[in-house]
């Protein structure tokens, strides 16, 4: 994982997502809820970003902004230096189809379609022929290790397998960004680790920018940077190096690990083996 940061030094650093003083206000009747209170950040190409924070912190709202799923009340969101708020419906659809791949906590596979059909659906929206789509789809399924289950429907797959299909689907049109909302939220410990590893591989080999919103501390070790959101504002942005968490230590004591990162102290934990 540490290789990626080093490998990227010689590649020109580009900003793929940039927010400028983004604010979001929800009106619930007479009450105004300030979900985001002015967040400015930028995300570089090829980074693996985790947005973390407690429930109600605005983490999900920020995530939606960055993923072109919602428009800010004020401020701008630039994806590849294009202001998302200025796009019309066709352009937004194109963006979601070609530039961004989405992964959801609830997998969100189309239940009436097989794994291969799910993976090739975005390709259909991008205008690929059936044959091209099928070839590419099988290749993607092979990358996530599910080539032999290409004709299984979602209900015939386990949670982890469904999420892997979802990852393959997200990669369908070779997007520059993958947006993952709590990808391990519905998975057990072991499966969650697999998924995080898979995402890390996508990030390393395909140079895809990965932005996740998550509670899962296992994600910390895979991320390049962690953006802590609290109460609608940026609490802290940390680089993984600063956290100094060993891969094995997370399994040993999850609670301790979290506390360690919040305090920002070094922990030397034994390998749980």
């Amino acid at each position, binding site marked *: 994982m540490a290789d990626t940061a080093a490998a990227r030094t010689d590649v020109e650093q580009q900003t793929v997502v940039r927010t400028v003083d983004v604010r979001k206000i929800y009106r619930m009747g007479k009450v105004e809820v300030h979900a985001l209170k002015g967040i400015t950040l930028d995300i570089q190409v090829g980074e693996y970003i985790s947005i973390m924070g407690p429930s109600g912190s605005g983490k999900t709202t920020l995530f939606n902004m960055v993923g072109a799923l919602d428009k800010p009340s004020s401020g701008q969101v630039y994806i590849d230096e294009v202001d998302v708020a200025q796009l019309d419906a*066709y352009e937004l659809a194109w963006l979601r189809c*070609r530039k*961004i791949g989405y992964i*959801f906590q609830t997998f*969100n596979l189309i239940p009436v379609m097989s794994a291969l*059909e799910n993976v090739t659906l975005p390709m259909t929206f991008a205008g*690929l022929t059936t044959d091209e789509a099928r070839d590419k789809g099988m290749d993607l399924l092979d990358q996530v290790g599910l080539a032999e289950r290409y004709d299984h429907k979602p209900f015939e797959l386990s949670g982890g397998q469904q999420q892997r299909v979802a990852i393959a689907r997200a990669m369908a049109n070779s997007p520059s960004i993958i947006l993952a909302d709590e990808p391990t939220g519905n998975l057990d410990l072991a499966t969650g680790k697999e998924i995080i590893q898979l995402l890390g591989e996508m990030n390393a080999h395909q140079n895809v920018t990965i932005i996740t919103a998550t509670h899962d501390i296992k994600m910390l070790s895979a991320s390049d940077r962690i953006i802590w959101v609290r109460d609608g504002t940026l609490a802290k942005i940390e680089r993984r190096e600063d956290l100094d968490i060993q891969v094995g230590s997370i399994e040993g004591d999850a609670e301790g690990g979290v506390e360690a990162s919040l305090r920002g102290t070094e922990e030397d934990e034994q390998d749980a083996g």
Partner: protein
Amino acid sequence: MAQPGHGGGQKIGRQIVLPFSKAFEIAWKGIKIRIWRSMITMSGIILAIAFLMSVWTGGVFERALHAVPESHPLHSLVQGALEAEAMAGGGVRLHCVVAEERAGGSVEAITPGGSLETFLNATEAFRAESVSAEAEALAEVLDRETADVSALILVGLPPGLADAQAASLLERFVRDGGFLLVYGAGGVSDAAESPLAGLLPATPAGGVRSFDEGSLTRGPQAVQVQWATHPAARFVEARARSGAVAMAVARDGGDEVAWSWDLGKGQVAWYSVDGASAADPDVLSWFVRGQGAEGADETVQVAGSLMNRLIARGAGSRGQTHDMRGVWLVTLSLMVCVVGITNAMLMSVTERFREIGTMKCLGALDRFVVKLFLIESSLQGVVGSLIGAFIGFVLAFLRALLTYRVTDLETGETFWLTLHFFPIGSVLVWLVIALAVGIVLSIVAAIYPAIRAARMEPVQAMRVEA
């Protein structure tokens, strides 16, 4: 076709509009998996179209029987069946006033009993009333319930009725559309003396000539009709000449012979109970064979069956109101069906929020989502309409089959008339119309839910709870 390259270097493009076939593919897959859920939506269409079809094709079977030409060997049975059906269909109330001559020259009120009792019992549609045959009473009845009295049967011609009164009463009655049946038993002494003399065709002295000599196996040698120089008789003549339907029935020995005056033509046609004349379509040309019993009962029953036919013909013209009610019922059921489908589809949209949101995240345009739902609904419409039309047809067919089933009393053979006269062309036409209606309905009903689905925000796909 643009290559989906690494989105990083490419500026924002515009999403292409997918061909219809793609939407169809995905919608078709959706239906196959959600087949049980679709059945619920479809059941509304099935019921509505079944109802529609059964109403339409019911009429088709009946019209096919009406269209049977008189030359067809089964024509008489067909007529009988249609008339019986019309009778049973109700809607025609007949008020029958029967005035009878008693022996001794006086006219007495009718009391149910004896032959008349049989008559009344044999025709349930009648509401008979006993009245004094005197002119005042008769006038009062006719005055009071003119609208209700559809037919007047004079059993015998009461000689006690005064000329002018009876004539005017009867004249007004027939002018108002009533049917007058003068039923006289007895014989005629001399045809020349009869006020009907001018109408009778030239006959050999003392004899009666039949049109169809072959059918009248036992030809009466003399027909005796007891026509007094009665105003009613003259009246009947006069009316007959001007076109009203009038008829006299007489018995000669053991045979029934009847005269009828053709509408406006002034001709006299002879009928035996066996045969029918094809030359007078406007006049009742059918007698059913007297059903068994000898004596007065038989003649009464003949008169009764004559009335049946009249009522049936009258009932036919009353059929219009039936149709309007049918149209209203059908329209109502279709409207209910549309509401039901809309509701079911809205529920479906609400439940599939995640799926729709995800599709939009994958790049589906709003119009694609609309197409998806419209196609789904129209597919359901096609399948539902086919099933419904079939069910409706079967129901109507079975009903017609059982209704128009007659037994020829002579031969004892049973005919399933609907099978003999099956209107395949009309049935197919209505089938196509029912299908079209079902599909249009399904699409119309899905418009609002489809638009709701299309407006759904992709961020909905993120929601964890339903």
